[in-house]
């Protein structure tokens, strides 16, 4: 840049600047007051700055620009006035302008114009009229500046183009590297994935498959590429699999996930989780399909095994209760209006004995053998033999034709079990009881038939072993009623559904009412008025007799107290029945004492009636209790005397005050009895009365229905009578009226 520009002539004219400025050449430039002094240079720089304002972007304030241009102006002035003249430094000015970013085209234009006008004018070079040489020099300076400017700008442009291109290369390289790295990662994911991945086109041709998929299917990539997705149809595919696939390849869905079986190349079946996704191009057109296939065969087999185990009995291998219940429900679901179902509920007789005496191992083997026999003689399509626990088996007949079907099966089973079963060295004779239920599925439920089969099996057992019993709805209804009664009894006591009737006990000699027997009744909300024979036996079985008896005692005593208060010495004693179980209840004595104390009834006005068997029992405790009661002053009567095996000699040792002769003896005393039996009965009754009186006991005759009977009993010496002749059992008012 510092070499002289070609075509710029050596200066031919000296400007005589020394003369103009009045200074020597050496001092002319740069002097304080010369053409390069602050005034001239500053003025020129300001004019320059004004001329180029806003034509280029330079990172300077206006004053900084002027300062910068002042330096350049000084260089230009120096060059212009130099002797010998050399315009070369103006090239550097041009280059310096570019360096400072004075690169706008208008900047150069205005600069060149300024050099032609302002520069010589401000230097006063036109004053002496020697314009020729000045113009020449100015033109040379302009040329040099423009050349330096152009060269620098060209260089800068090339540099910047180079730089930006380089930047693009670098940036591109970096992004491509990143892209390649990311592609490599994705490829690795595809290639190394443990899950099988395959890519196919929309026609189902397989294009790519990863190693996992090839291994899973047992094909090479080349083999797979010759196949179509549809070639992998499995006959047992759910219909939905291929419907979903069709939707996908028609672009109607973007992915689906199914369980699907595949045949491997070796024919083996694998179970998979298959996910197929649709890949669309930029415009949304379906382009590829990607299948991800996970081999879940092991999991599936395990699941199958667990499922089998969950539904089968491990000992016999027969279906278990869960599978049976499942099939039973299905029989109901598919039975419709006309379908029938049958159950044979079977329980081995005496299995517990075998198990306990010969050991569980023998017991188990016996169960296995029984299971095999049942399976062999029963199992058929539509029939299921299940072991549903312990020694209980059940046979389901899914589409039974009639009750006869299950009866035939039951007979078959009983016959099949007749031959002894050999377990080790034991030859075991077994039999089974079977409960049969067979009915239309319509109008009943699996739970109903199961419950009824259970009940029927119980009947079969209690009817004797090695039998079948068929469910009988009427018998069931009776038992249900019984069950209902026993189940509702405790609540019935609470709710006051029981009440007492009283039947007078009358002195035969003068017809005076001396006592009243309390008789319990149940006003049942569902079954109506119930006599004691409907529920006392049941209460004895269930133990409810104890609380019920306690209630009766308290209620009777409460009534006795009312009479006692009202009639004083004329009040009747109250006679209350004690069941066998009550007589053995350890709290009996305490209960009676408590009730007497609470009600304030004199002990002598309470009579407890017990049956012979209760009193004559072998155990000592009841006797102790009776003695204690007797000692308390409570009267003890033996009810229905003469119907049991009474040890008459023993009577004297018992704390008994009264005998009540059973109505059957009294019946014979009816005047109309024509067969002469009354004579025998009269003697028996007479003997009993004598015996009783000999022991100091009173005698009451039960079941007195006629006046003749009453008279005869009086003649025999019987003390009291009870029966319809005198009064039927009735509400307490009846007694009150009789006494009033």
């Amino acid at each position, binding site marked *: 840049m510092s070499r002289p520009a070609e075509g710029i002539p050596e200066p031919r004219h000296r400007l005589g600047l020394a003369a103009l400025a009045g200074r020597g050449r050496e001092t002319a430039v740069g002097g304080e007051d010369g053409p390069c002094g602050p005034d001239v240079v500053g003025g020129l720089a300001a004019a320059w700055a004004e001329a180029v304002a806003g034509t280029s*972007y330079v990172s300077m304030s206006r004053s900084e620009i002027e300062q910068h241009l002042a330096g350049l102006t000084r260089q230009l002035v120096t060059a212009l006035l130099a002797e010998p003249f050399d315009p070369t430094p103006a090239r550097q000015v041009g280059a310096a302008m570019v360096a400072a970013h004075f690169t706008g085209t208008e900047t150069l234009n205005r600069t060149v114009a300024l050099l032609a006008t302002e520069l010589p004018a401000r230097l006063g070079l036109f004053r002496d009229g020697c314009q020729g040489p000045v113009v020449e020099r100015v033109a040379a300076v302009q040329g040099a500046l423009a050349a330096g400017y152009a060269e620098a700008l060209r260089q800068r442009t090339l540099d910047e183009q180079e730089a930006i291109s*380089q930047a693009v290369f670098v940036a591109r390289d970096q992004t491509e590297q990143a892209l390649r790295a990311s592609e490599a990662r994705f490829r690795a994911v595809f290639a190394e994935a443990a899950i099988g991945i395959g890519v196919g086109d929309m026609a189902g041709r397989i294009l790519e498959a990863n190693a996992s998929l090839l291994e899973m299917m047992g094909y090479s990539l080349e083999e797979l590429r010759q196949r179509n997705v549809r070639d992998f149809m499995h006959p047992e595919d759910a219909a939905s699999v291929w419907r979903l696939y069709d939707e996908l390849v028609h672009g109607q869905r973007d992915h689906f996930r199914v369980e699907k079986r595949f045949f491997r190349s070796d024919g083996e079946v694998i179970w998979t989780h298959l996910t197929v996704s649709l890949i669309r191009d930029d415009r949304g057109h379906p382009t590829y399909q990607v299948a991800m296939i996970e081999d879940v065969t092991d999991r599936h087999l395990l699941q199958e095994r667990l499922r089998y185990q969950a539904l089968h009995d491990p000992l016999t291998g027969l279906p278990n209760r869960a599978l049976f219940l499942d099939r039973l429900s299905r029989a109901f679901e598919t039975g419709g209006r006309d379908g029938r179902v049958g159950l044979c509920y079977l329980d081995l007789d005496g299995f517990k004995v075998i198990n306990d005496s010969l050991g569980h191992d023998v017991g188990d083997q016996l169960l296995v053998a029984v299971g095999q026999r049942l399976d062999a003689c029963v199992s058929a399509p539509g029939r299921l033999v299940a072991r549903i626990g312990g020694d209980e088996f059940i046979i389901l007949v899914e589409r039974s034709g009639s009750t006869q079907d299950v009866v035939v099966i039951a007979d078959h089973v009983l016959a099949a079990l007749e031959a002894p079963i050999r377990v080790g060295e034991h030859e075991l004779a077994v039999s089974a009881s079977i409960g049969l239920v067979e009915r239309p599925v319509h109008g009943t439920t699996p739970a109903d038939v199961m419950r009824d089969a259970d009940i029927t099996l119980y009947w079969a057992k209690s009817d004797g072993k090695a039998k079948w019993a068929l469910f009988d709805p009427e018998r069931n209804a009776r038992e249900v009623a019984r069950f209902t009664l026993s189940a509702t009894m405790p609540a019935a006591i609470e709710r006051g559904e029981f009440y007492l009737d009283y039947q007078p006990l009358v002195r035969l000699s003068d017809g005076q009412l001396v006592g009243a027997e309390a008789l319990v009744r149940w006003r049942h909300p569902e079954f109506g008025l119930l006599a004691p024979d409907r529920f006392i036996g049941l209460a004895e079985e269930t133990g409810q007799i104890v609380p019920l008896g306690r209630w009766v005692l308290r209620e009777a005593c409460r009534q006795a107290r009312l009479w006692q208060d009202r009639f004083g010495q004329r009040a009747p004693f109250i006679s209350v029945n004690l069941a066998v179980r009550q007589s053995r209840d350890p709290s009996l004595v305490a209960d009676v004492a408590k009730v007497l104390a609470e009600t304030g009834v004199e002990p002598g006005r309470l009579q407890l009636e017990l049956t012979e068997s209760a009193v004559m029992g072998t155990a000592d405790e009841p006797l102790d209790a009776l003695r204690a009661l007797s000692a308390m002053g409570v009267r003890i009567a033996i009810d229905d005397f003469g119907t049991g095996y009474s040890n008459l000699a023993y009577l004297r040792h018992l704390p008994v005050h009264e005998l009540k002769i059973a109505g059957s003896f009294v019946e014979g005393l009816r005047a109309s009895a024509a067969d002469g039996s009354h004579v025998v009965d009269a003697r028996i009754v007479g003997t009993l009365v004598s015996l009783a009186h000999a022991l100091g006991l009173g005698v009451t005759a039960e079941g007195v229905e006629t006046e003749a009977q009453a008279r005869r009993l009086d003649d025999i010496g019987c003390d009291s009578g009870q029966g319809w002749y005198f009064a039927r059992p009735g509400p307490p008012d009846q007694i009150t009226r009789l006494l009033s």
Partner: protein
Amino acid sequence: MSSVTTGPRPLPAQVDLDRPSAARVHDYWLGGSHNFAVDRELAERAERIVPELPAAMREYRAFLRRAVRFCLDSGVRQFLDLGSGIPTVGNVHEVARAVDPAVRVVYVDRDPVAVSHSRVMLADVPDVDVLHADLRDPERVLDSPEVAGLLDLDHPVAVLMVSSLHFVPDSDDPAGVIGRYREAMAPGSHLVLAHATGDSDARLVGEQAARVAALYRRSADCLTLRSRAEVTALLTGFALVEPGVTRVPDWRPDTPRTADEHPHRNIGYAGVGRRV
């Protein structure tokens, strides 16, 4: 897409020379040659609609210089230049280091070419770094090793958004973005904002501005013009430095100006806010 709830914004995955880049168009208007035919074509088409655009760009650049000096005068010695573009004459560190050689600067741009170029240009300049990131991801910018390594956010910092925030559409919540930077800025920090507008209070007709904006839609950067009120609102949470939000050339000019000294159309607003 709301930038508040999404993760880091994906940076351009490819260098696409078929699309103009705002950074290179800007360079062209500033008289640079760091640009390609596609950039120049966009620049020239925009100039045909608004002939004063190159002059306006120079005003932005001049504002940057004045604002940097203002920040230096306020004691700030670290700068975060968001949307720095192609390095050209009058870069922040050049302007600043004329005053204090110890100034530290981090340049941030999303344009991979601008970043690559900046790295080459600044390779040998100490205490200056370049970060390839999108200014719409404040956390990614502020937590970057470049910022963490060079700037101490416990001390005042000048965050520069000169001619860059108008490339953030409203859907990207520019106010929220600024707010997240603000949270990270120590008291005494400054936000320097210069933003393109479509306000037609001078001679710029809104339609012309819209046509320029449309041109940019073809580029990698979409232009969103905002009114003076909108630009002022973006500075919410900062104490506005005198003279507030003004036309770009009117913000603290070097010499007092008269109306005819800046005949350019109103091309944008400038303002500086101080974190108090």
